[in-house]
């Protein structure tokens, strides 16, 4: 089997567990023995309810959290062998609250990682223009401040910011969860177009089955810190696995990809 870096998974979890320290042995295990591979170029959706461990899994990838046991490989190297800063700059990160810097203009927000990577100013400006077009924002938005933008616009800037240094991997933690339904659907569609153009490796956390079916190339269903099943959307729809069925029932009929 061809084992060159390009065919290896972009992200590999091998028996990864994550515990938070309680008193003595009473630590809580948020993630138990996770074995999961994220293939290059796919959109892997982590689907689960609150407390299922999906956000914990995401944050282990860019080392915002450290695995308590097991091995986590990003781009074939264990995360503990990576320089943490370099690892994070190789990974785009989009969160639900967006977290734009209010004292920076949109341009400055998007250009932040390129700036701390010492890109020349011209290249940064060009890149910002490129990204605004990519996420469907007018060029004049560049000089505005986050407080002047709508929620949908802010998250578009958030995505642009995450893509600024052209990272191969993108982590998204319920990025559209705080938006109204119409804006959410709009952004989901744009995400699909973006993925077609960019082919990033994306790990996408959501609790919304419809979103998972729409956006995911594979869906990893999680519950109580464990991985229950990993399936394509078609497989999920036809699945008789009890948790998957419970999800489908909870979301009502007319589920489609």
């Amino acid at each position: 089997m061809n084992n060159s870096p390009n065919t290896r998974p972009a992200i590999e979890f091998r028996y990864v567990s994550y515990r938070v320290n309680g008193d003595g042995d009473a630590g809580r295990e948020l993630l138990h023995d996770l074995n999961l591979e994220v293939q290059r170029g796919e959109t892997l959706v982590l689907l689960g309810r609150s407390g299922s461990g999906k956000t914990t899994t995401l944050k282990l990838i860019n080392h915002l959290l450290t695995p308590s046991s097991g091995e986590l490989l990003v781009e074939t190297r264990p995360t503990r062998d990576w320089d943490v800063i370099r690892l994070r700059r190789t990974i785009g990160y989009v969160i639900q609250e967006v977290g734009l810097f209010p004292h920076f203009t949109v341009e400055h927000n998007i250009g932040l990682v390129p700036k701390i990577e010492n890109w020349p100013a011209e290249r940064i400006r060009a890149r910002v223009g490129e990204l605004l077009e990519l996420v469907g924002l007018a060029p004049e938005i560049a000089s505005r401040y986050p407080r002047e933008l709508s929620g949908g616009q802010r998250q578009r800037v958030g995505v642009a910011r995450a893509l600024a240094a052209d990272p191969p991997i993108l982590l998204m933690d319920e990025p559209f969860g705080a938006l109204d339904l119409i804006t959410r659907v709009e952004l989901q569609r744009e995400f699909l177009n973006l993925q077609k153009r960019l082919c990033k490796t994306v790990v996408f956390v959501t609790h919304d089955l419809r979103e998972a079916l729409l956006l995911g190339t594979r869906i990893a269903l999680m519950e109580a810190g464990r991985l229950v099943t990993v399936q394509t959307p078609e497989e999920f729809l036809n699945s008789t696995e009890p948790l998957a069925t419970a999800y489908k029932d909870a979301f009502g009929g007319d589920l489609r990809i």
Partner: protein
Amino acid sequence: MSLWQFMVHNHTEILELTLEHLKLVGISTFLAVLVGIPLGILITRWPALNKPVLGGANIIQTIPSLALFGFLLPAPWIGARADRLAILALALYALLPLIRNTYAGIQGVDRAIVEAGRGMGMTDCQLLFHVELPLALGVIIAGVRVATVISVGLATIAAAIGAGGLGEYIFRGLAMVNNQVILAGAIPAAAMALLADVSLGWLEKRLSPG
């Protein structure tokens, strides 16, 4: 003669005392800023130091000012000159608002912003200087404002140990039982406090984001 005439008549001395007062407040606040703000930043990075640092500054503040002057008198080099002693005491009193406001200002930055910054690969230094400090600046300046106004008031007591400043007139007036003399010291001191409050308040608003 009226109070106004009295102040005009003695304007050289009043000006001299005002400048002395400014020197005491200025140097002590500057020292407190130099020590207090870094300490405030430190305890956001090392939460274990939170209790000792804030607790220590709190204890200093609860010591009655005149007593603190008294405690510092026997200290070598410091106690030798009244103005050094006063400056140190004033700086110590200014520490608590500065440390506390720096800490609160940085902790008050939206956690989502800090998480986004860390997740993007900003180093701790970059996060501090590009994000946390600029966003905490308004609250930090508020701390400087409180520290300065407290110092202007406390510096009047410095005269009791011979450090000069407008307190001299106040104490002199009290000894002479002469209201004009008291007011000739108290009014400029009050005006100084108000001016500091208003101008730093303006700066605080200008530097607060959003």
